[in-house]
């Protein structure tokens, strides 16, 4: 089967973002960018399914300007077979991203689409579910285990109360949670090889999708700072403070 893995270029998870002084957005100038951690888990899962003989081809796709080719090359180095960059300078809403991906799904006809559950920049947690709705596919979100059996895929999901397993008809959408797998590191020979793997560039405007913004950002501000409190010297003092000063225990 063919697996499609949409990935996103985001700020590296080790970088602490700063809000621009004019409160228009966060400052991403000269900041280290990486593949979104949940997307990396998605690539890894696809590669494991290929190694297990379940998948035959892995196509990575990313939407953004030329710089996201760097993350597509990372996906290729990790084991994706080919890549598609959908070129746009716009920062698209999740719905418009899902609409572009819907067109890619129509063209590529994958049996499985694996995405990260959310990106660590906008924290929306929407694209996979929206793509599932637009394509009419079932969805296994927040996956901690994925098992393909015949024409179904069983997905174990991380839910508030514990774990839930659902069976989905293929083709299906899966979004990854943290514990699905631990992504490998790309080896140097694989990074070199990835440079020669095919990477198609398509203009977002050519997809015939209305990409008008659905939301506007009014402002972006830093969060309220919490003030550091005091260091207590002993458990006795701590218990006393909690009882008599904070009054949170009795």
């Amino acid at each position, binding site marked *: 089967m063919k697996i499609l893995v949409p990935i996103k270029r985001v700020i590296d998870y080790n970088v602490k973002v700063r809000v621009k002084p004019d409160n228009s957005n*966060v400052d991403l100038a000269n900041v280290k960018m990486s593949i979104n951690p949940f997307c990396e888990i998605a690539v890894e899962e696809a590669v494991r399914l290929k190694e297990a003989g379940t998948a035959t081809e892995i196509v990575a796709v990313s939407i953004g300007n030329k710089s996201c080719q760097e993350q597509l090359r990372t996906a290729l180095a990790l084991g994706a077979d080919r890549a598609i960059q959908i070129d746009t300078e716009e920062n698209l809403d*999740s719905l418009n991203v899902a609409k572009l991906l819907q067109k890619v799904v129509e063209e590529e006809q994958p049996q499985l689409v694996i995405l990260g559950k959310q990106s660590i*920049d906008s924290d929306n947690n929407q694209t996979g579910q929206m793509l599932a709705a637009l394509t009419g596919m*079932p969805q296994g979100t927040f996956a901690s285990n994925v098992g393909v059996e015949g024409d179904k895929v069983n997905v174990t*999901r991380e839910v508030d109360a514990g774990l839930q397993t659902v069976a989905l008809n293929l083709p299906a959408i899966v979004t990854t949670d943290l514990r699905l797998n631990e992504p490998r590191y790309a080896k140097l020979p694989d990074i070199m090889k990835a440079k020669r793997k095919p990477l198609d560039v398509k203009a977002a405007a050519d997809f015939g999708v209305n990409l008008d913004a659905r*939301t506007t950002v009014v*402002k972006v501000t830093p969060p309220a700072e919490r003030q550091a409190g005091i260091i207590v010297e002993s458990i006795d003092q*701590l218990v006393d403070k909690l009882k008599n000063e904070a009054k*949170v225990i009795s």
Partner: protein
Amino acid sequence: MSILVFAEHDNSSLKADTLKTVAAAQAIGGDIHLLVAGSNCANVAEEAAKVNGVSKVFIADNPAYEHQLAENVSLLVTELAADYDHILATALTTGKNFMPRVAALLDVAQISDIIAVESADTFVRPIYAGNAIATVQSLDSKKVVTVRPTGFDAVATDGNAEIVSLDTVKDAGISSHVSDEISESERPDLGAASVVISGGRGMQNGDNFKLLEGIADKLGAAIGASRAAVDAGFVPNDMQVGQTGKIVAPDLYIAVGISGAIQHLAGMKDSKIIVAINKDPEAPIFQVADYGLVADLFDALPELESKL
């Protein structure tokens, strides 16, 4: 204006976080209706009818909704949505799962995880793991919104709404429920507890989490964990507090052996009082703690338990 709020429940009782989502609906303002979709969930509808500010409760009681599969619930909510300006759900795993599907079917954007309402079309939400706060305006005619419970105070439950049964059954027939593995606990739910005590990598192994249990019992606390402790395999993921786990805001949060990574702080920094116990005086957790104790947790925890 009219607002449809999806009720969180487990087919037997209404989740308290729904009361906070209704509070968000009141902040938007309008006629508020609740939808209870489940199976054998009449009791939930009875409870929902008592939620203040709600004028009508719809109950869709059918096996197709028993496990609230996104494929089925999204079809039901999308059909009902025709009569509403706003559709709200709580930003817990059920709402996060099906709501974007509703938004896409309605061809509108979703505003996720709001923590405040500015106006009927403008909402406040954390981005970048809470390191920035965005004020976002929706340009769509219908607003599909998920609500972070820690951002709102629960409404009271002395109301008396009309209960209306829905006969429409939406079964997409493309997914089915296989099994649940529910974590059994006598302790309060992490999201609802007024006291939370969490352990981090400093706990060293899963067995040592027992050191937290005695304290949790005395304080009526829920037990949580940092992502580092979950990643190390000490405890299951449903105990994780943080950007990628549960967001909590109890009256008292006790962080034990937790360094205070950004992603953990994102899940607990709205707590009223934060206590940190860590042997490293440089740990970033002390910068957000109201009370810090620099100590070896293996000495401090037994002493704390004995003195509560």
